[in-house]
């Protein structure tokens, strides 16, 4: 079967773009219309994406198309789109979550006077993210990569009057930019080392896959690691994770869309897209795996000690992204993408649920909530499903994807397997803490909580259903690994369905939840059992290992100091020399004035002296 819809995949990003343009041009005056425009745009994009996905799931061929963007000398830089199995999957994830978030925001942002601006930004983001997903080459991807970054920046700083939002937006942009520079250098390297300066993924695959040695191993490793630096920035991996929790200053639907489901997963997607480069270098693979594993456990521990509901979820996102990276680093492309896929749904669900809670109680501090389970039944149930999925309890989707990662880890690197297990335990613990503190016990909130309107609960239900079902696309028994077989056609998919791993990971998850239940519901274990014994540790976790302070002291302050020092150099030394030159001319003039005293005799004397000097010089030269 020929690909019919895939040829028109370029239309998918176009609808949100048109929506954005319409809203920007006319939106300010038309609130309701702009919402409808954005909603329609994302709905059409969703439908088209689903058609494309079905076609790709059938026997549709992969499709790519490009046009020349610039011709310079004999080099051509092009832009293009490409529809592969992976991109069609991502298309649906992005458009689906985007559509649900659009719907949800109708309720959540109802009272905001700049709601049309908000919808405009979301439309722009959806456009950029779809462009990123569809990119045929690295340059196109970089363009959209930056655009999603800027949309994230705009939306984090949406409530621009709040100083925290301003700072968070700035931080989000700058920290990810550090990563972007890594990606930029990787592109420069690839451009000059690839035959014919090709940057498209197909050529990259050909060059690196064949192991023909076209590109030296050191360069390969360097390129891979630089690409990974880009991914580290975008996907909030250690040490560039600091922006993601702060980005929670943005409206909650944004946190669900951008900072949980789609944009932060772009790093994982990037690594997956250029996976052949990574596979060509074991060092790069190890780097990815270890950074991912460290991030997973590092962020999970911080998550335990936070009190802001969105920050807990943010650290959880960082941790889960670490999982995905670890899977990729261990050589399991399927595992990484599978987790990305399930995580997009249950994390979006959790964030939207958190939004529903915040909407009801007007606080983000979980210590000030409690007992919401009875008042907000739909939110509580759906949130619970999300939490269970995240904690890796069967048969929810998170269990299957986490299991895929953990069994790969057991095969390749037992150390990382243990790290993954510990992180999973912490994950279950902080989710249990979050859930029990918010939904059970006595109400500690002053606000009169109530269930959110239908526009907000419907997306929750849809996502909850997906959070349950999404795991079944890839079951760990042979013959049931649909996703893996589809993503990597032609390659032998060996999936070790190890019952042992399943039992252990379920047990670890259940243990975490049980411990949380003991502490926060039953009270068998005192809440401050840790903080009373080792207060330093709790403080350390609460302060996020002092990473922000460290960066402030090591980077921000010295940089500002250098700036000030250079300012002094500029003002006093460089401009000083300039002023000195000017002053020297003035002084020479002054000396001239002094000679010009109006006394004829002085003039005569100077003339005479000058004459004598002249004579001496001229005559003297004869005898020289």
């Amino acid at each position, binding site marked *: 079967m020929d690909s019919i819809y895939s040829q028109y995949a370029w239309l998918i990003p176009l609808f949100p773009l048109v929506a954005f343009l319409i809203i920007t041009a006319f939106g300010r005056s038309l609130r309701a219309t702009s919402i409808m425009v954005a909603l329609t745009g994302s709905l059409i994009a969703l439908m088209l994406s689903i058609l494309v996905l079905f076609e790709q799931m059938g026997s549709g061929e992969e499709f790519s198309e490009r046009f020349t963007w610039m011709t310079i000398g004999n080099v051509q830089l092009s832009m293009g789109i490409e529809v592969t199995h992976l991109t069609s999957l991502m298309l649906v994830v992005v458009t689906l979550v985007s559509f649900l978030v659009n719907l949800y925001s109708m309720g959540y942002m109802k009272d905001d006077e700049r709601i049309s601006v908000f919808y405009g930004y979301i439309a722009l983001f959806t456009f950029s993210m779809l462009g990123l997903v569809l990119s045929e080459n690295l340059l196109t991807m970089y363009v959209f990569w930056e655009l999603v970054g800027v949309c994230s920046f705009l939306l984090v700083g949406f409530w621009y009057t709040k100083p925290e939002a301003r700072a968070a937006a700035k931080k989000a942009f700058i920290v990810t930019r550090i990563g972007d520079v890594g990606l930029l250098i990787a592109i420069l390297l690839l451009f000059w080392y690839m035959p014919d300066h090709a940057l498209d993924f197909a050529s990259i695959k050909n060059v690196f896959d064949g192991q023909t040695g076209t590109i030296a191993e050191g360069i390969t490793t360097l390129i891979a690691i630089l690409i990974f630096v880009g991914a580290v920035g975008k996907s909030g991996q250690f040490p560039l994770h600091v922006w993601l929790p702060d980005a929670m200053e943005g409206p909650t639907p944004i946190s669900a869309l951008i900072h949980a489901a789609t944009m932060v997963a772009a790093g994982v997607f990037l690594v997956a897209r250029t996976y052949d480069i990574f596979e060509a270098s074991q060092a790069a693979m190890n780097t990815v795996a270890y950074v991912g594993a460290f991030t997973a456990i590092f962020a999970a521990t911080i998550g335990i000690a936070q009190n802001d509901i969105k920050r807990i979820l943010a650290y959880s996102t960082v941790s889960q992204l670490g999982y995905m990276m670890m899977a990729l680093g261990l050589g399991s492309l399927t595992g990484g993408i599978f987790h990305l896929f399930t995580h997009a749904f249950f994390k979006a669900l959790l964030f939207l649920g958190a939004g529903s809670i915040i909407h009801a109680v007007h606080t983000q501090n979980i210590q000030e909530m409690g007992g919401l389970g009875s008042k907000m039944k739909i939110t509580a149930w759906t949130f619970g499903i999300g939490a269970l999925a995240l904690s890796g309890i069967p048969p929810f989707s998170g269990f299957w994807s986490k299991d895929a990662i953990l069994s790969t880890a057991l095969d390749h690197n037992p150390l990382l397997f243990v790290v993954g297990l510990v992180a999973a335990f912490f994950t279950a613990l902080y989710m249990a803490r979050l859930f029990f503190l918010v939904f059970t016990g006595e109400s500690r909130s002053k606000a009169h909580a109530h269930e959110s309107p239908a526009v907000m609960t419907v997306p929750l239900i849809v996502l909850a259903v997906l959070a349950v079902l999404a795991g079944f696309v890839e079951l760990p028994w042979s013959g049931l690994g649909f996703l893996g077989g589809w993503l990597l056609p032609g390659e032998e998919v060996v999936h070790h369905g190890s019952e042992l791993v399943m039992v252990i990971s379920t047990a670890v998850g259940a243990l975490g939840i049980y411990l949380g239940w003991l502490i926060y519901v039953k009270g068998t274990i005192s809440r401050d059992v840790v903080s009373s014994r080792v207060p330093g540790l709790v403080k350390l976790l609460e302060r996020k290992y002092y990473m922000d302070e460290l960066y402030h002291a090591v980077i921000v302050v010295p940089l500002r100091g250098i700036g000030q020092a250079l300012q002094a150099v500029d003002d006093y030394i460089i401009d000083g020399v300039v002023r000195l030159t000017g002053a020297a001319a003035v002084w020479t003039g002054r000396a001239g004035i002094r000679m*010009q*005293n*109006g*006394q*004829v*005799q002085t003039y*005569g*004397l100077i003339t*005479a002296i000058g004459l004598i000097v002249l004579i001496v010089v001229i005559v003297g030269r004869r005898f020289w």
Partner: protein
Amino acid sequence: MLSSYLTMAAILFCIGLYGALAKRNAVVVLLCIELMLNAVNLNLIAFSKYGVVPSLTGQIFSLFTITVAAAEVAVGIAILIALFRSRGTVEIDEFDEMRR
């Protein structure tokens, strides 16, 4: 023979130069300028008599110089008197109006 004339002229010229540059009384300065002129006259005559190509031109020239010098002194003295009338002094360093 020539060299003694020239030496004499040089000495005269130097005295004149010194006076013209160093004396404060304008009358003395004028006199010193005359002295320098005369040193030049002396040179002219010496060269016209003992020079490589002796001729009368030098002597005639010196006559012209003397005439012009006389005229110049007359004008100079006239200016000096006018100045003395208006300023009450002939001290030369009092006169720097042109600079202002």
